């Protein structure tokens, strides 16, 4: 607990200090435009760095609950603060990205053909990823990490087998960071290649494994393949969003240029943001209303559910020898319970109808299966209510 509270306090103190430093710097540097820009740039970077650290820490597993590790009394407040951080991050990044363009426009040096030269492309990609949550720690990411760890373990014990797979992972990782992934075809191939290489790499290892364990190894590789398919589709979706963003940003640029000619430029960044936001939202909604997008989204949801299921199955294989109740077994119990409950309901209705007919009353009797409740606050302690999020 102490460590986390200290971490938050540290963030709060350093943020407050940063604000004070900026104020001081502003006073000192007034008039010296060039050095002032450098200072402003440095401070932006500092701010972003502290911001990122905070964001990353808030996504750590120990921050997930409402236990003693969080300074917030309720997880809802922690979520709200995280959303404030994330939104401010996006807002500030947008400013950073557009700053050179707006400056060029201000000095009448911006030509539309130069627009993308003034935008930091990696920053643009990161921005879109953040806007749509591709940067978030997702269960798939956690699954990927677990699988990678498992693979690494096996690779350590099967040195020869891992030779072709290891370098592939290592050598190809920088590829992720480049803009080449805007081509979904190449990435799909890359993922498939990776999955096939994984299969080849582990083939000798399976040969030396006990029969009983073979299906789980096979399943892991199948999962890796499924993961590859899923990530390829995610990448297609990202690409779609990047392309739509490019189109939206160009529209914003055109709108700004038109307005500059009319002498009607935004007077503060928030005004610019609102204009940018309205144009972008309309563009994205238009994209989301296409069959192409809807089909891809549908495929992603399907692949994600299949991956989750495959992972569960695999976990059950691992857990099989242990005295635990498996989810698939519980599902069977739920199914039987549901059927039994249905039969009881039918019988209760029948009894109710018979009683009603016997007493020859109009059909306004309460159902037999009702239970009167005397609680004053029905909202509290509701059955099945979710835990604090």
């Amino acid at each position, binding site marked *: 607990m102490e460590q986390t509270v200290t971490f938050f306090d540290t963030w*709060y103190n350093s943020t407050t200090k*940063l*604000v004070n430093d*900026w*104020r001081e710097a*502003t006073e000192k*540097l007034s008039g010296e435009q060039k050095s*002032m820009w450098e200072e*402003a740039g440095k401070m*932006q970077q500092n*701010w972003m760095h502290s911001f990122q650290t905070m964001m990353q820490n808030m996504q750590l597993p120990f921050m997930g609950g409402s236990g003693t590790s969080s300074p*917030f*009394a309720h997880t*809802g*407040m922690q*979520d*709200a603060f995280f*959303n*404030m951080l*994330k*939104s*401010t991050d*996006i*807002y500030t990044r947008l*400013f950073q990205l557009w*700053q050179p363009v707006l400056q060029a*426009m*201000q000095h009448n040096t911006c030509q539309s053909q130069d627009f993308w030269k003034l935008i930091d492309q990696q920053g643009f990609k990161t921005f879109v990823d953040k*806007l749509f949550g591709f940067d978030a720690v997702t269960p798939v990411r956690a699954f990927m990490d677990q699988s990678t760890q498992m693979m690494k373990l096996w690779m350590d014990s099967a040195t020869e087998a891992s030779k072709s797979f290891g370098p592939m992972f290592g050598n190809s990782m920088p590829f992720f960071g480049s803009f080449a992934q805007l081509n979904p075809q190449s990435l799909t191939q890359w993922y498939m290649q990776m999955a096939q290489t994984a299969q080849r790499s582990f083939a000798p290892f399976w040969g030396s494994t006990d029969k009983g364990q073979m299906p789980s190894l096979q399943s892991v590789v199948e999962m890796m393949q499924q993961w590859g398919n899923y990530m390829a589709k995610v990448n297609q979706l990202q690409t779609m969003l990047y392309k739509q963003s490019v189109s939206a940003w160009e529209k914003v640029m055109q709108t700004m240029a038109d307005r500059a000619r009319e002498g009607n*430029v*935004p007077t503060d960044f928030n005004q*610019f*943001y609102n204009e940018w936001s309205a144009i972008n*939202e309309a563009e*994205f*909604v238009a994209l*989301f*209303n296409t069959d192409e997008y*809807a089909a891809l989204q*549908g495929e992603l*949801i*399907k692949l994600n*559910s*299949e991956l*989750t299921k495959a992972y569960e199955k695999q976990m059950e294989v691992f857990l099989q020898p242990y005295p635990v109740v498996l989810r698939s077994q*519980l599902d069977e119990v739920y199914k039987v*319970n549901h059927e039994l409950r249905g039969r009881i309901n039918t019988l209760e209705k029948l009894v109710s109808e018979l009683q009603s007919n016997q007493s020859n009353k109009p059909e306004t*009797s*309460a*159902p037999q299966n*009702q239970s*009167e*409740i*005397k609680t004053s606050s*029905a*909202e509290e302690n*509701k059955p*099945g209510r*979710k835990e*604090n999020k």
Partner: protein
Amino acid sequence: MDFLSPQRVLEEFSATTAKLAQGFEALKQLDQVAVGAAPKQAVWQKDKVQLLQYARETPATAQTPILIVYALVNRHNMMDLQDDRSFIRNLQAAGLDLYLIDWGYPTPEDRYFTMDEYINGYLDAAVDVIRARTGQPAITLMGICQGGTFSVVYSALHPHKVKNLVTLVTPIDFATPRDLLSKWAQHLDVDALVDNQGNVPGELLNAGFALLKPLLKTTKYVSILNAVDKPEQLLNFLRMEHWIADSPNQAGECFRQFVKELYQQNRLVKGTLELGGRPVRLAAITMPLLNIYAQEDHLVPPEASIPLNDLVGSTDKSLTPFAGGHIGVFVGSRSQKELAPGIAHWLHERDT
């Protein structure tokens, strides 16, 4: 563009960060925000479903009790966010005797519950409980969003138990051009989703709803930074956020059927929907109908709600547009003054 001067940039960054730190301090002081605080009592329960009755200090001025049927998606608390933004309290103030069916939070054991069990099971049982408690042979059903669809289906199957039908922002025609959810549903392999996951996570639905207005979240959180030093405004904001995040999982089989037979096959308007082995014919709805839709609804576009009035057999039917969005209809300031009193007036006129 004066805001691009280094001086202004520093000021902007400085101010934003200061607000963020203030926001951190303000949120640290707050406990869970309370929503749905209007006094009520659970009068019946089956499994996880409860029937709640809202407490009244004075007798109701309308004889016919009202059962509010909210959607399975999200929670009914949106209708009672806070004392001065409460559709429920406004209906009460207008003299109505209110009940609400609370669907609860489905857990994995509820994955096999079907639409038939929700409508002909829980909802029918709740209606019978109210009829028995009040001695009224028929009640008013007031359905909201998906709860409106359920109410329409119920009224078609059990017309003798429904005296009046009120629907708000209710999808009936699931295949209209501006309906983004409908577009997405056409490409959803709902069998794979339900077979693989059982219940459908509330988070998945929330992620979908967020995509309908993809920039909204960022914009509203940036805006709220200007109100971190205004406790009332901040609390209002947090109550709405609390409601949005409180998204129950959906019982798998019911979700499958709702998506497949309504969103994908549009069976309700085609007249091919069956429930519990009985056909659902909208023409069988002959009781008075008040159908209210939101003019700027991005979740249930007006075109999805409006056709109901042409499909029912009622002769006494009203179609009322209301300015605002899907949620704004219930929480907006105009709603507080006009929506509930308008509905209550319509019901009083028919309370004979």
